[in-house]
Structure formats: C-alpha cells, structure tokens
C-alpha cells in the first residue's frame, strides 16, 4: 500500500483535512441516507407496484443501456482522435465536447428541438423524433457522452507512445495497435467513464422532458415518473427515488468491482508487456 504510506508522510491525516474531507462526505451521503430512512421496506415494495413505476423502470433500463452502447461505439474513436490530435483546434473541439456538462439540461432539450424539431435545422429530414423513445436516447447521449469521452481521452493520453510504436514495429496495424495495446491500457479509464456516463443517462431529466416529453411507457423514464409522482404524494415519490438510487448504486458498485478485478488480474507491468 505505497499510496497510503506517502499520504501519511505528507501529513494528509492531519485533523483539519480529515474534518474537511468528512464534511464533504457527510453532505454527499446524508441526503441519500435520509432518502433511505424516509421510506419503510413496505413503502419501497409498494413503490415498485406504483402504476407508473414498472414501465418507467423498464424504459429507463433499456434507454440508458442503448445510450451507453451508442456512446461507447462513437465516443471511443472520438476520444482517441482527441487524445492524439495536437494544436489549438483540437483543444477547442475537446472543450466543445465537454460543454453539455455545463449547459442546463433543459436548455439542451430546447437546443435538440431547434435541431430535430418540426421547425428545427433538420426539419427537412422529417425524422419525427420528438415524443419518441428515440428522443429519450438522443437526449441521454448528448447529456451523458461528455463524461465518457473526457475520461476515455484522459485514459488514451496516459498510454505511452513508445508502446504503440513498438507494437507497430512488431507488425501490428494501426487498428491492431489501438485495439490490442491502447484500449487494454486505457480500460480502467474507459470503464470509469462508461459508469459515469450510464449514471448520468439514468438520472437524465431536463433534456428528456423538453425534447421527448413525458408519456408512460414511451418517454416517461424514472426521473420523470418521480417528478409526476411528486405532484400527488411526496412519500411515494421518495420511495420511487430510492428504488432508482438503489439500482444506480448497485450498478456503479459492479463497475467498480470490474475495474478492481482488472487492476489485480493484470498489473500495469504485465499489461504493458502486452499479452499476445
């Protein structure tokens, strides 16, 4: 455990920093704990049977899964290009890719309408996207993709150029070097980004509401169902929210376990050596 040893040496265990760190932990965790305490197991069970919940849970599950798939498929090559590219233009593009994190999701929803809506830039294509499940996926992709691309680009940047060069001199094609050297080396970062991206897609609310609307079974995802339930009964809404929180927590925990398993099964050295 060399990391902890160095942290102790640098005095990070000193009381003020511990208090600061625990303070943040408290602020982050306490609301979730309160959410958990607000609902009895009976209420949690009842929430699962709430008329809006089964359809919303299923819709959230499959739309966020497809969104994640699309982001990995398109975001991995984009992150690779951004990590390799040099010059000011590359940095400007990379910043633009991060922008949806800063823009309020509701504004992203309006912006999507201005592109894909009836009076939007691509209105001529008559895609008829708004109010469909495809619109839900698109909203999730736009809002969540930056988290994956950013993490993946950072992962690819940490890949040693020399290793890629060695792979190429040993006869690997550019594609082979990417798939068999760069991707395995950046895998922890890719998994990390994918987990963040999926979590953000699952929690997506504002862009979905504006771009896709809210219709049970078609566009009403869990966050939208929670908001709808809030209008009638706060206790039911908190119970449904807890269901969503539990689903998210267990999935993120799983992703973390996968990353640790990767770290253990292949030490950086073994991976750098390049298994055939």
């Amino acid at each position, binding site marked *: 455990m060399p990391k902890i040893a160095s942290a102790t040496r640098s005095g990070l265990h000193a009381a003020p920093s511990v208090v600061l760190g625990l303070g943040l932990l408290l602020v982050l965790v306490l609301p979730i704990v309160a959410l958990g305490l607000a609902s009895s197991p009976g209420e949690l069970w009842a929430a699962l049977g709430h008329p809006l919940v089964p359809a919303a849970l299923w819709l959230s599950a499959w739309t966020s899964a497809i969104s994640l798939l699309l982001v990995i498929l398109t975001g991995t090559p984009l992150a690779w290009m951004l990590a390799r590219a040099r010059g000011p233009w590359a940095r400007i593009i990379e910043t633009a890719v991060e922008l949806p994190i800063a823009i309020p999701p*509701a504004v992203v929803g309006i912006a999507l309408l201005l592109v894909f809506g009836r009076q939007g830039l691509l209105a001529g294509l008559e895609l008829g996207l708004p109010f469909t499940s495809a619109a839900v996926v698109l909203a999730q992709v736009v809002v969540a993709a930056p988290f994956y691309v950013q993490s993946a680009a950072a992962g690819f940047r940490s890949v040693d150029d020399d290793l890629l060069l060695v792979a190429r001199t040993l006869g690997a094609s550019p594609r082979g070097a990417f798939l068999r050297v760069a991707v395995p080396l950046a895998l922890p970062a890719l998994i990390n980004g994918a987990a963040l991206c999926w979590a953000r897609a699952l929690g997506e609310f504002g862009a979905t509401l504006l771009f896709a609307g809210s219709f049970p079974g078609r566009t009403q995802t869990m966050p939208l169902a929670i908001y*709808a339930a809030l209008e*009638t009964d706060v206790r039911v809404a908190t119970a449904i929210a807890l269901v969503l929180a539990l689903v998210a927590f267990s999935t993120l925990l799983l992703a973390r376990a996968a990353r640790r398993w990767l770290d253990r099964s292949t030490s950086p050295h073994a991976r750098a050596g390049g298994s055939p």
Partner: protein
Amino acid sequence: MRRALQCLARGPFGWIAILTGLVLGCARANDDTPPRTLTVFAASSLTEVFAELEAEHEAANPGVDVVVSTAGSQALRVQIEHGAPADVFASANAAHMQALVGAGLVRHDVRFAEGELVIVVPRDNPAGITSLEDLPRAERIVLGAPEVPVGAYARTMLEQAGARYGPEFRARVEAHVVSLEPNVRLVLAKVELGEADAAVVYRSDATATRAVTIVAIPADVGVRAQYHAGVLTAAAEPELARAFVEHLRSPFARAALERHGFLVSDAEDR
C-alpha cells in the same frame, strides 16, 4: 433578479430556484435600511399577473419588498408543509388550499379568481382546429399529467364533451396524446415551439404568449379552476400578508386578473 427567479421557478427547476431565491432574498435584505419583505408563494399560472400586482403593491407600500416565488401549487404546498418561510400562498387548486387550512398552516382563505380551459394551437394551425370537436384531428396533442390540476381538469372536460360529440370522444382525443407534462407552462411550451398541434391549458396561460391561437371550449363542457389565496399561520409579516390577500379582490387586481385571462365576476368568499 426577480424576473429571472420567476422564469426559473416556472420550469422543472422551481424547487431549486425557490431555495436559491430565498437565500438571495435573505442576503439582499441585509443591505441598507431594513426593508420589510413579503414573501408570496404563487401557482405558476399566476406568474405574469402577480408580477403586476407586486409592482403595484410595492408602489402603494413604500419600504415593503414583495418577493413572488412561483412553482406548481403542489410543490409550493409541500414546501409550506416543510416550513418554508412564506407569508402568502396563492393556489391554482382548491384542494391544496383546503389541505393546508385543514392542517392549520394557512388562514383567511379567499377565492379570488377562476380559470377556464381553452385549446391552444400553433399560429399556423397545421391540423386546422377551430373547435373542440376538431381536436381528434390533431396528430400530436399534449395534456397536463393526470396528477396536476390542468391535466385532471382537461380529462373531466373531455369526459363531459362525450355528451356532445359521442361517448368515444375522450378516447379519440387520447389516442393522439404524445405527452403528459408536469406543469401547464410546459404543456403550452410544446405548442409554442410548434412540436404539438394542440394542447389544453388555462386561458390565462394562453393569453401570456403571442405564439399560439386560442380556440374556446363550449361553456357547458368547460371546467373551471378555482384560485385561492391565504395567509400562512407562521407568516413573519401577517398584517402585510392579510393586506395583500385582501387586495387581490380590489378593482385594480380584478382588472389585472381579467386582462390576463382570469374570470373574476363570480369569484367570492368561500
């Protein structure tokens, strides 16, 4: 800043905006001479008319700063139940007001206006809707969620319209419903943006925008929303609050309410 807050509070982020507003409001109150602040929680549909009443009330009462926070009536009710520091509550729905009065949280409940439902269509009216009977012609219809007053009223209205246009009228309309929005402003926005061919909202909301055309609903199938206001039991400024609520039935307020599409003629004490 006040306008910005109202714009925010109208949308789905009203909860956050209101909390921010309260914090900013408190911070501002510490500035120069201590002005008295009257905090009014109002249903989103009252946004424009209360902005006028706020300005008039501040002009008539020097040293009084009226802060209006708008959100869905249900969201405001929950905040009041959790001790939000407001003085006046104005609800778009009698049930929320009755619940708070029953719990001893609000007093001096007064009905000050009514809201009637109308159909709104985009200015170019792509589906060619000129009456309630035409509504099933729309390709995309947007309603309020059944959980929010405007959605519940719309359903009652569609049900009652069955007597005129046949028992399947409601089903024929609902077959074209593409979204059930969580508040009336979002229902309206979908038509303003041209994404929906028709929607059912309050006349007062439709009056607030030039981007839509109003199609009236026959009086015998119409449903009216009841607007109530009252003073919070825990109000920091109970006299100011009482005066504001009383003032809602003054000639000035009635004229402003009518100008914004509310009905005031038969509004009275409950």
